[in-house]
């Protein structure tokens, strides 16, 4: 019953997708039957501003190879949440550098409900990055 298709070495990509924009955007990609790498795991979030800095570091520590925050961008239904989250992300990048983590492993982008091409582009780019970088190695685990 052991499966090789779900091999850990592929590098897992966590996607935080906003429920009003990026998550239906991912559904739209599905409706178009456009294939993308299967090492992607989408979490539906109300606003990614919910996640504190340590969440991202914890994810890398657990073995997540890349994280894409797919927000609503300027379309954010919570006025001010996007800015708050972008500011917080600056601090996460500082912490990632301290941990000697390549900051390309974490990317903030905006995906709308029908942004199929942008979704696929982001996923494929991050997949290239995680294949290139391999599993995350923290300086202080």
């Amino acid at each position: 019953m052991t499966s090789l298709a779900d091999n850990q070495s592929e590098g897992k990509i966590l996607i935080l997708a906003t429920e009003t924009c990026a998550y239906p955007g991912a559904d739209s990609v599905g409706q178009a039957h456009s294939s993308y790498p299967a090492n992607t795991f989408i979490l539906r979030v109300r606003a990614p501003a919910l996640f504190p800095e340590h969440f991202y570091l914890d994810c890398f520590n657990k073995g997540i190879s890349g994280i894409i925050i797919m927000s609503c961008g300027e379309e954010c239904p919570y006025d001010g949440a996007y800015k708050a989250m972008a500011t917080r992300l600056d601090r996460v990048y500082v912490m990632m550098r301290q941990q000697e983590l390549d900051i390309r492993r974490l990317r903030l982008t905006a995906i709308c409900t029908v942004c199929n091409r942008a979704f696929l582009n982001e996923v494929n780019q991050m997949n290239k990055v995680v294949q290139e970088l391999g599993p995350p190695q923290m300086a202080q685990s």
Partner: protein
Amino acid sequence: MADENKDKAITSKRKVGVYICYCGGNISDHVDVEKVRERIEKLPEVAAVRTNMFMCSDPGQEMIMEDLKSGAIDRVVVASCAPSLHETTFRGAISRAGRNPYIYEHANIREQVSWVHHGDKATDKATRLVSMATAKAEQLNPLEPIRVEAGKHVTVIGGGIAGLRAAKDLADRGIKVVLLEKSPFLGGQLASLDQIAPTGDKAADLVSDLAGQVLNDDSITVHTCSEVESFEGYVGNFRLGVKKQPPEMDPEKIKPPGAAGEAAGEFIPFAGVYNGDMPSVPAEFTVETGVIILATGFKSYMPSKGEYGFGEYEQVTTLPELIRSMAENKAAGNLMEFNGRKIRSMAMIHCVGSRQIPGIHPENEGGYLNEYCSRTCCSATLNVSNIIRTSHPGTRIFEFYRDIRTYGRGQEELYEEAARNQVVFLRFEDDASPEVVRNISHSGDFPLMVKVKDTLTFGEDVGAPVDLVVLVTGVEPNTISDLVEMMKLPVGTDRFLLEVHPKLRPVELPISGILLAGTCQAPMDVGEACNAAGAAAVKAAALLGRGYVELDPFVALVDLEKCGGTGECVNACLSDGALNMVDMEVDGQTVRRAQVTPALCLGCGVCVGVCPENAIEVAGWTLKQYEAMVDRIVAEEVTA
């Protein structure tokens, strides 16, 4: 289909039931559903795993309800299509089983697995998504919806036939209505028609009758020349900023109402019913309302210059223009007249601006194609042809079509009648549209020639010399980008507004309290638009019927045992008044702690990210739940 793994050591306090859908092959063609079931049965928190061909069917839902009622499970995960389609369906089933609907989590294994991945990878990913959902479900607690008062008031945007129907139906149920129409007239596009197929009703009569009922109803306030400028609030408590201003009108087409002494309530042909309300200066006002019904309608497709000779030859026109000409010139005679010219022979070309095909039809200036069928034009064209052939028997008609779609009651008869009336039909292939050219061989006789490879005569090249070419133009959604932007309305790839579910929730949007009526959603005929409007009115009445509405309980919760009163959450909060520092008694001492006002909380979670004590969460979307899901993404044993 074993539903329980009895050998498993139960280490969880919860009993999660998992229900995996085949979706009639949509999922099971790519995901080995039974293998997913076998793997998920091993998870400690899972008490039962079942599969079904269609979990959303009655038997599928009953399976969940029976397990809840018997006590076999106390949390529910359904793995099926996107949650936007059926999350409410399954929450409803849980409610019907007498349980709290928020003990539910959804795993999206169709749109985000089987439609995008294949083979073992699809099965493995589906397994992980389901295990992530069960890990979250284990931590779900029952939640109570937030109850807020809702005014029994509906705003209908758009004064066409659908908007009028919805307004009147609501008023008949005792609900106050504001009807906003941007033009000075009521009746919408229907007012631009004459005799309606297949019943033969006069559009003027239909519009006048319904608009009269609306204008005479004390429960309905009509504002013409009015457009929504701002939008805020939520179901039960929306607030619309409206601007009312003198309209811009083409005096060539429409005379200013009142100039010819029209009385309020009078029908002005090809404009609509004038309600006597013509502002001379702009004004702004606010509407507080519980539900919004969008009835923003459609516009007729305008061919581009050169499309079948449109704009190049004066003898090429559109079906709406022909209908208007016929209504304004009803003189009998052997030959029909158009623009003062007698028409001996005419061509109708179907599907202009509809059913456009990528690679064959050029994209519009906006870069889009109208790939949909406009649905109403076949019958409208046949109806016009029958009127012409009956009133002006000397005028010959050639109809050039790809397919004839007379789909409704009494409409197929129009086709048969047209055949009896000796209308000549010529059929063309998708990639071989007719050509409209100047008729050189018969110069001075028939000005135009329509050439086509006619598949009804096995591909014969046919040319029809004509005096007039009528382009049967389809429908396009009205440009409502301001409303789409303001209200965050979902729009389909066809640019019409997109309902939550085309079959099960056909007039609802994902935004609670905003409903759809008529052709803003898709091409419809008058009856269908009125049906949709009636459905929207019933939905609105049901939403407001209790005097309150229930909002999702996904709002911030403060854990007073952890809260140290730093006030970081209050500083970060995006909604004025949602979070406040208040004095309260803890262990006999007065301390300042954070307190949530649920009705004002947006549930965005900004407060969660800043709390140094992890003392605040968004109910139903907690950080711990997300962390548990991440653990399942990386857990090696899940797909082993």
